């Protein structure tokens, strides 16, 4: 019925159709990251609708990742959060470009680390204390993909001061002598920082390493510091609370004891950036979508605080 040549052409045609079919079935929507600084393997958290509105903080790694067939559904939270070393955290929300096609590409443009100015006042110690503490802070926040770069303003040498003790409960003497810069984090290194503590029926004060003043949230006091005290107090100013086991261990930056603390979870990195009350949003340093995710809250918008990066 068919000549040999016709049979061969038909066979090739069928093969082409088969390959196209396999290719079509294999295609999936993609998230492509553009303008990335550095060579880190980014972490992508994806929310949205695939066959149901149940894609909730699905984690991907890479700069070009397949995500199945994502579909637009305006009743469903659809967003992409990207965390990468050397880059600011990117929160794209809502994502409205998914279609029923399985060949959608959403491009997320990354940007350089978000610069956060910090004013330092040295009433005790040496200026280089703050230099190494800001460096340690930057190392931790960048390695953990929190996307921030703290920039120390010219440190003010105030070591001739007569102020020997400071507490958040009585900031007036300190602020009168060294007025804090508005809309900026102000860090005061003082000889002694105290905090009220309850012991039995009595309330007394105790010396502490450092404090973030919730009542004046751009003020941080550093006293008898550990290497990560500044980074830890900055964490508070960025809305993070203390963490505890079993979800966390003593390596997390927000662990309340003076140990070597170098870790931040992705759940913490998102809150640092997106929480409305975070210093970077309060002070207008970051422009972008915000929300309110207390550490204890877990829902579609707020990934579990302990959300971390699984081993590759």
């Amino acid at each position, binding site marked *: 019925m068919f000549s040999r040549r016709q049979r061969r052409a038909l066979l090739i045609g069928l093969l082409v159709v088969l390959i196209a079919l396999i290719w079509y079935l294999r295609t999936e929507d993609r998230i492509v990251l553009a303008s990335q600084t550095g060579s880190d393997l980014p972490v992508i958290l994806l929310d949205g609708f695939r066959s149901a509105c149940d894609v909730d903080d699905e984690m991907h790694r890479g700069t070009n990742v397949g995500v199945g067939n994502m579909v637009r559904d305006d009743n469903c939270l659809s967003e992409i959060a990207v965390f990468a070393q050397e880059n600011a955290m990117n929160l794209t929300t809502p994502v409205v470009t998914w279609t029923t096609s399985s060949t959608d590409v959403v491009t997320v443009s990354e940007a350089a680390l978000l610069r956060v100015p910090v004013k330092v006042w040295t009433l005790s110690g040496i200026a280089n204390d703050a230099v190494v503490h800001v460096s*340690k802070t*930057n*190392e931790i926040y960048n390695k953990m993909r929190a996307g921030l770069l703290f920039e120390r303003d010219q440190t003010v040498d105030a070591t001739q001061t007569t102020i020997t003790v400071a507490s958040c409960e009585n900031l007036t003497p300190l602020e009168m002598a060294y007025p804090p810069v508005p809309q900026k984090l102000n860090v005061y290194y003082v000889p002694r920082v105290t905090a009220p503590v309850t012991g039995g029926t009595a309330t007394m004060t105790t010396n502490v*390493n450092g404090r973030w003043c919730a009542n004046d949230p751009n003020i941080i006091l550093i006293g008898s510091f550990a*290497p990560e*005290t500044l980074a830890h107090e900055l964490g508070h100013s960025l809305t993070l609370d203390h963490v505890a086991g079993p979800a966390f261990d003593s390596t997390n930056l927000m662990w309340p004891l003076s*140990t070597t603390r170098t870790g931040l979870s992705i759940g913490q990195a998102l809150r640092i950036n997106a929480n409305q009350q975070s210093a970077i949003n309060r002070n207008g340093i970051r422009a972008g979508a915000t929300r309110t995710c207390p550490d204890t809250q877990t829902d579609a918008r707020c990934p579990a605080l302990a959300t971390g990066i699984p081993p590759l």
Partner: protein
Amino acid sequence: MESNVIAAMLLLILGTGSMGCAQSPQPRILRNDAVLEAWLTCEECTNGELETIVRAGQSMVSPLAEALRAGPTQDTLDGTRRRLTGAYQSMVEYAKTHPDAPVPMSEREYVDRHLENFIVMYQSHAATGLGAIGGAAAKDELTKASALPLRQPVLTVVRETLQRLQ
């Protein structure tokens, strides 16, 4: 036969009882150590660390007094020194590729400054803990410590605590 069975059961019961007695102090000691460490090394001390010390009561006077007099144990100091050295070296490594994270301090200076702070905080918290527990024994320990050649910031806390107890 019956008496043998009864004897065996009695032995089992006594054995279990004595095992329970032998084991019970250990977790208590471990718990006290953890409570003590949490207070002596807390950064902001907002998590009820002192409250727990006070609840443990007079049993804490002796370990707190020891912490005040002698500071951290040699093991704790060695461990802290190792951690500080690691933190410094990690920063130096990071600075090689990040010029915006300078480390203008020698390893020795970095370790010494932070270790000194750690000791001061440890001993200051010990003094505050004794003051919070109160009582004759705690006061006696603070009085004795006030005459020791302790670091000045620690002595300041000791004297303030004693004044409060007067």
